[in-house]
């Protein structure tokens, strides 16, 4: 029987964004990574190109959150207190393709570490691993600005991915990214229009589009994932239909969000129907990551080594040997 594959041709293309810089480019990374470039919906190889496969980053911390689950502590032991060594372990043993340094300890209510201390930690991690870095801040605007300015300065030329700016707090950090050659994450709370608006604001200050990654804000499995999922599908559809202010690669946080929720921490004896807590944590993160991956995620920051291994292998399989750098 005759059958013709119904193809949809898109006019839009996701901008290709590179992270990291080699010595020739003014940094110290052994290689750079690139995300974006898609001309079709995720995994639609039959009607477009996907020159780069989604990447998996892992995260290290300047301060361990009291919500950090013991099932994860078992993997890292003391190393969790040493961001440099932890980064190394993530790259060498668990296959992290980038490292995110989360600077939550600089938040005035969560440790109030100084900008200088944060800069030291970032330098330590830079020296310990050769993969590109993501620097993740928080939403205390004044303090975050101060910290990020400093961090951008001491990592000048490294083309880190600075995460994140919001609508009411983008100018200082965006300016620092331009001055010291970094790439920037724009975060908006699960809303297509706000996402577009923030990208417009940035480009209006002549921020180069090939240096923008967008974060649609991750809700974990059971905690709003369906909202994130649909917003990402809408953003990607708009981008492929030609909206240039939506055509940026997307970053999501399955690790941070999953390991904040009760389901990844509560012991099995209290919730027998929920099953083994260690496995449950991994599954929770995998489900969050896999659904956002099919919705259009290009860069995923993950926590559980088993979840990282599973999702990374799956992405490679789904690309069937194609792309990936």
């Amino acid at each position: 029987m005759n059958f013709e594959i119904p193809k949809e041709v898109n006019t839009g293309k996701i901008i290709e964004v590179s992270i990291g810089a080699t010595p020739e480019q003014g940094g110290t990374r052994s290689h750079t990574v690139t995300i974006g470039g898609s001309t079709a919906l995720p995994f639609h190889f039959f009607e477009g190109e996907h020159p780069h496969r989604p990447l998996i980053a892992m995260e290290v911390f300047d301060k361990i959150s009291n919500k950090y689950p013991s099932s994860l502590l078992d993997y890292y032991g003391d190393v969790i207190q040493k961001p440099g060594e932890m980064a190394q372990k993530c790259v060498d043993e668990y296959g992290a393709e980038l490292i995110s340094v989360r600077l939550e300890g600089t938040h005035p209510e969560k440790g109030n570490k100084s900008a200088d201390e944060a800069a030291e930690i970032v330098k330590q991690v830079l020296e310990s691993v050769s993969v590109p870095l993501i620097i993740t801040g928080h939403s205390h605007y004044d303090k975050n600005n101060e910290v990020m300015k400093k961090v951008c300065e001491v990592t000048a030329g490294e083309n880190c991915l600075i995460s994140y700016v919001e609508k009411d707090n983008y100018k200082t950090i965006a300016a620092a990214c331009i001055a010291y050659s970094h790439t920037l994450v724009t975060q908006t709370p699960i809303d297509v229009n706000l996402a577009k608006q923030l990208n417009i604001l940035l480009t209006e200050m002549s921020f180069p589009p090939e240096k923008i990654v967008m974060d649609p804000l991750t809700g974990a499995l059971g905690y709003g994932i369906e909202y994130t999922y649909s917003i990402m599908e809408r953003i990607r559809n708009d981008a492929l239909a030609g909206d240039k202010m939506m055509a940026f690669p997307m970053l999501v946080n399955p690790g941070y969000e999953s390991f904040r929720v009760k389901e990844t921490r509560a012991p099995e004896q209290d919730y027998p129907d929920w099953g083994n807590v260690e496995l449950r944590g991994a599954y929770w993160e995998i489900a969050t990551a896999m659904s956002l991956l099919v919705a259009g995620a290009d860069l995923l920051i993950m926590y559980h080594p088993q979840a990282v291994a599973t999702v990374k292998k799956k992405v490679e399989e789904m690309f069937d040997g194609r792309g990936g750098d």
Partner: protein
Amino acid sequence: MALSGLDIFKLLPKTNCGDCGVPTCMAFAMKLAQKKAELSECPHASEEAKATLGAASEPPIRLVKIGKDHPLEVGSETVMFRHEKTFFHQTGIAIQLRTSEGESTLEQKIREIEEYKVERVGEQLEPDLFLITHDSPEKDIFLKTIELVIENSTKGIILDCAEYETLKAGASLLKDSHASILLKKTVTDEWIDLAKNYNCSLILTSESYEDLATQVEKTKQAGVQNILLNITSKNTGLQIQQNTILRRSALKKAFKPFGYPLFNQINTESEFDMFATAAALLCKYESIVALHEYNRALLYALLTLRQNIYTDPQKPIQVDPKVYPIGEPTPESPVFVTTNFSLTYFIVSGEIENSGISAHLVVCDTEGQSVLTAWAAGKFVGETIAKFIKTINLEQQVTTRKIIIPGFVSQISGDLEESLPGWEVIVGSQEASDIPSLVKSLSLT
């Protein structure tokens, strides 16, 4: 595809005989177009009219039911993306039983899976089907397994057995149970007859679109309408692609042979890999996924993802705004306040219960939004909460004047105190899981 009144009129006898109960064929055509009448009410309609109108009223993807008492319904979807409207029928989760596992293992497994039910946000979640795969050299165990499922469970059954006679014996045990037959080789007349005789649906398998379409046409013409499509592929990326192509063909191209729900049996070595595949396919159009392994943690995560993806994006799941008693509150029992987003309500009420006290839980109308979302939207602030408390006459029902608000909205406590004269506003913990220790520290017990 919907036909207009005029399109329908052209197919009618145009004699205006009135036998249908309305005076003219045109009037009858208009009623048909508005779905206020059925073609059978016109005794003179031609075969052509019946065929055309019948096809036009069929949904683009057929609804198929598997099981007897509480059948799983799959198919009948109308959109490619959930944000366009909603996905109507959630992915069925089937668990594989292999006859080579032996009777005692199988019996235990069936009981375990039948018992597995978990509550989340007020809904009961559970796997839906058993896939019985016959891979043992003994014939009898296939029939025995079917009997075990019938005895111990009300879930629907999919039969997977390559030997015709054995399958037939199995299907005969399930005559009116709306079982499904998973056929892994090209369909032939005898299998179609078997499905027809025992009232089963057929899952047709192929790795090629053309071949699959040919098999569907053959099956349909031979009189079996309840079909599922099992297009196989060598990896999850291609599976998503193929599922998309099938769904798009049915919805956008009205390509009838692919207007059926999709089935996929996941065959991977590791449990983690199987889970990751299931999670992706559940989002991307699979109507049934069959798993070869399970454990509670895995099922809970997968069922939660299914609940999330298959909610209606237009309406967050919400509870009625009102005062809910927790335990057996007296007028002196403390008052807690939260929003009417179901997830928030169930978490908070559960934790107050865990703390062992009795209390009044005031659930404000935030149109189904969570605490911070509602606060950011101005729906959960001092003024609106106070107003709600006045409307429900809380001050007449309780004598306590202590009210505990969520820690995430500590900033509203001043406003709330001002709008609720006489009340002491206590800022609670940020996380509901800390409510038991909050209760202790406030000596509320």
